[in-house]
């Protein structure tokens, strides 16, 4: 598959703080990615650099084969910011009209459908909108732009459950018909767990992990039972976290487990369960912290 975005050894400091620290990642065409990290992990700084809003201290960013120089804004890229700053006195329909001029793949029909789905009044002025509705205007532009690289930064902040569902549904629906590269940056992991194909997990400006979500589901296990059996089972396997109580304990194991290993473990009284992405993320981050 073709590479749509290439980030190579990119760093950015704010004062003495490493917001992004020698980070590299590639995005392929026709894939939905998740960029996961806690608040302050460096997600937004990275996205600003990709969108050309700020320039890295070092490293290279290449979008659709063209390296970004200082002041460049990548073409064929739609970046929906967490705090979009559309003119406060513009009406929703004016904002859409501007977007229609700006994005070459703009689909006006989809935009008008989304107005209805997201319950937005095109005559309202931007300053009259609630936080959630303002997010929805951005999300609508992100979807209707059909940009080959579309980036959403915390797209569901301020939205109620119903509107979140509607956004994810609209995203999947349109993506299924018009595949493109989408990067969803969020700290709300379980909401996007089935929507994304691959995740980048970042912490303190560095990439902790890059993996297919289905691979994580296959590899992440919570194993519990007596410590003696547990020790034997985890030997040679990657353990993210271990905790004990008396003779018993539990371990978060990141390793494939074959059917025979599983039944053998169960014979020894061990219990093996899956770990949801959100939990896995928490254990991974926590482990990173204790090594600091």
């Amino acid at each position: 598959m073709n590479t749509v975005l290439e980030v190579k050894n990119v760093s950015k400091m704010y004062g003495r703080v490493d917001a992004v620290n020698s980070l590299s990642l590639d995005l392929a065409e026709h894939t939905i990615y998740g960029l996961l990290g806690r608040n302050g992990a460096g997600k937004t700084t990275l996205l600003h650099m990709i969108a050309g809003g700020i320039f890295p201290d070092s490293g290279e960013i290449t979008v659709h084969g063209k390296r970004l120089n200082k002041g460049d804004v990548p073409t064929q890229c739609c970046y929906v910011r967490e705090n979009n700053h559309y003119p406060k006195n513009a009406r929703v329909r004016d904002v859409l009209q501007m977007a229609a001029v700006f994005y070459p793949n703009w689909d006006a029909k989809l935009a008008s459908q989304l107005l209805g789905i997201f319950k937005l009044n095109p005559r309202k002025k931007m300053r009259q909108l609630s936080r959630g509705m303002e997010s929805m205007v951005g999300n609508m532009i992100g979807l209707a732009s059909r940009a080959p690289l579309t980036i959403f930064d915390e797209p569901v902040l301020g939205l109620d459950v119903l509107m979140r569902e509607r956004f994810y549904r609209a995203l999947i629906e349109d993506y299924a018909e018009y595949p493109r590269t989408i990067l969803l940056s969020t700290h709300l992991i379980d909401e996007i767990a089935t929507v994304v194909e691959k995740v980048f997990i970042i912490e303190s400006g560095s990439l902790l992990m890059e993996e297919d979500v289905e691979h994580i589901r296959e590899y992440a296990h919570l194993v519990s039972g007596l410590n003696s059996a547990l020790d034997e089972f985890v030997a040679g396997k990657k353990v993210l976290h271990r905790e004990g109580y008396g003779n018993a304990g539990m371990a978060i194991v990141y390793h494939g487990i074959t059917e025979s290993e599983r039944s053998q473990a169960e014979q020894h009284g061990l219990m093996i369960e899956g770990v949801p992405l959100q939990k896995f993320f928490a254990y991974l981050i926590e482990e990173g912290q204790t090594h600091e």
Partner: protein
Amino acid sequence: MLTPFDESRPIFQQIAERIEDDILNGTYAEEDQIISTTQFARLFQINPATIVKGFGLLVNEEIIYKKRGLGMYVTVGAKEKIMNKRRERFYNDLVVNLLDEAKKLGMSTEDVVAMITREKEKLDQ
């Protein structure tokens, strides 16, 4: 997110199981067309690539097959194939575990059989 899938194990396997269930319960007969990737994605808000992978499992096992340009169809003999596979799993997962647990609790095989017979009679009444 609303999804009938268990988010702690691979979704593509659960998608395959769901289609198998639909073949077993008669939602799809042999030679019927099954739900499309796009429909499935929209219905459950799941990444289309995951669904393609789930359908791929069933294609490998010759439970469904692809008609070029049309979609996925249920293979003749698919139901029998699924039932055989599930019977094997029934033995491995349920019968073996049942007897293991019975042993831990100090129950004899006769005790277990008697319990099953009693329950079956209750159900049949």
